[in-house]
């Protein structure tokens, strides 16, 4: 595994989820991405960010950055409007999409851009499991098993890819969300380190 691509979602004119107190998902996930980057680099893992500031690359531009790497892992960071505050959910694309994509896969061995993720569903699910269990150990009320959802950003990434969603911007100020940052970063770094061992040994 050569690199982790961290994706702070939204940005620019798109704030993502907004809380009644004015909290914006796009601001919080950028601060999370910076913390996760530090934790990953401390493990000797190279990191790229899909955005460094308050701008808003398209879904495809973010995927392009990931798809230009070999041996990358993609992690998209989100904060929701809803859900039990202080909990974290980790998502990968549903398994059924793999089966349905097999019939329409191109023969030349090339992955169609709009279904680039489907070849990596199993690996993504494994990564989601590793991250979710780390989150459950740190954030009370979080599930021990990961979730599946058709997250748009993940579909066009041709690498193991997950989305992490923290609840939520509904809190009165950002202090509780900021307090979750170091634990979130440590959880991701430990899970990615475990995934790297599995990934490089060719296992599942």
């Amino acid at each position, binding site marked *: 595994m050569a690199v982790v691509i961290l994706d702070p979602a939204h940005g620019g004119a798109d704030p993502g989820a907004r809380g009644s107190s004015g909290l914006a998902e796009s601001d919080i996930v950028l601060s999370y991405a910076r913390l996760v980057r530090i934790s990953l680099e401390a493990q000797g893992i190279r990191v790229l960010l899909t955005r460094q500031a308050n701008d808003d690359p398209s*879904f495809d531009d973010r995927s392009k950055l990931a798809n230009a790497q070999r041996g990358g892992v993609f992690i998209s960071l989100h904060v929701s409007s809803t859900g039990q505050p202080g909990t974290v959910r980790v998502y990968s694309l549903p398994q059924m999409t793999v089966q349905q994509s097999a019939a329409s896969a191109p023969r030349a061995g090339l992955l169609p851009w*709009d279904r680039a993720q489907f070849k990596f569903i199993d690996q993504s699910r494994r990564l989601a499991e590793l991250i979710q269990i780390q989150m459950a150990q740190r954030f009370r009320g979080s599930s021990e098993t990961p979730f599946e959802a058709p*997250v748009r950003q993940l579909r066009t990434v041709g690498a193991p890819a997950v989305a992490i969603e923290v609840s939520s911007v509904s809190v009165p100020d950002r202090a509780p969300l900021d307090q979750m940052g170091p634990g979130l970063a440590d959880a991701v770094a430990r899970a990615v380190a475990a995934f790297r061992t599995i990934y490089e040994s060719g296992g599942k």
Partner: protein
Amino acid sequence: MSKGLKTTLVILGAMVALGLVTLPGLRQAVRRLHSTPRTEEQARREVMQEPISTPTDVEVQAQMYWLSGSSPNSLDPTAIQLPLSADPVERSKQLLNALIVRAPRPERRTLPAEASLLAFYIQPNGTAIADFSDEIVSGMPSGILSEQLAVQSIAQTLGANVTGIRQLKILVHGQEAETLAGHLDLYGLFPVPSLAPAAAPSSPVPAAAPTKTPVTSGAAQTKATGSAPAAAAPAPGKQAPH
């Protein structure tokens, strides 16, 4: 006193008497207007969305999937009395309109109150196409969790009350949208769990057991939808016709 002045005084007196007689009624009308303020949304809905009724309507217990009253991460089936048509398309429209306007409490909503269903079709292969107004996007709480629950509430409500729908395509104002509110992919088709009884569509739908239906984890989705694939997972490469 001249005759003209007398006549004027008589007319004025009559008008004052008439005013005194009608004043209480006017006061009541003003009080009524104050006590029942109509929101812009209600006024628009009255004009735009008259209740759909068809000759085959039968009052039945419909199973509606709104947010759980006890957990913000799951849906609960709730039985309500609803006149539903025997025609699957009209029946689906009635159900989706009720899903928007009949939530028992605001915090149990899955779809924005200001959203409306613009059109609904069912293709011969069992693909339903639901076309919502722009407010389904602009009024939707942003997030993977909330957007997935919104789609699942539509799919499961249709699956529980209409036979023959196998999958669902969501359009926004007649167009394909990339996401519902920034996260959930609207690219493909969403499976509709087959939860409706095999009886004729117009027969009453029995109330489901009052069990919670968690739907956000992969395992829970399977549990909630029986043998059907996980809800809210779009099948790729099957685009609805324009």
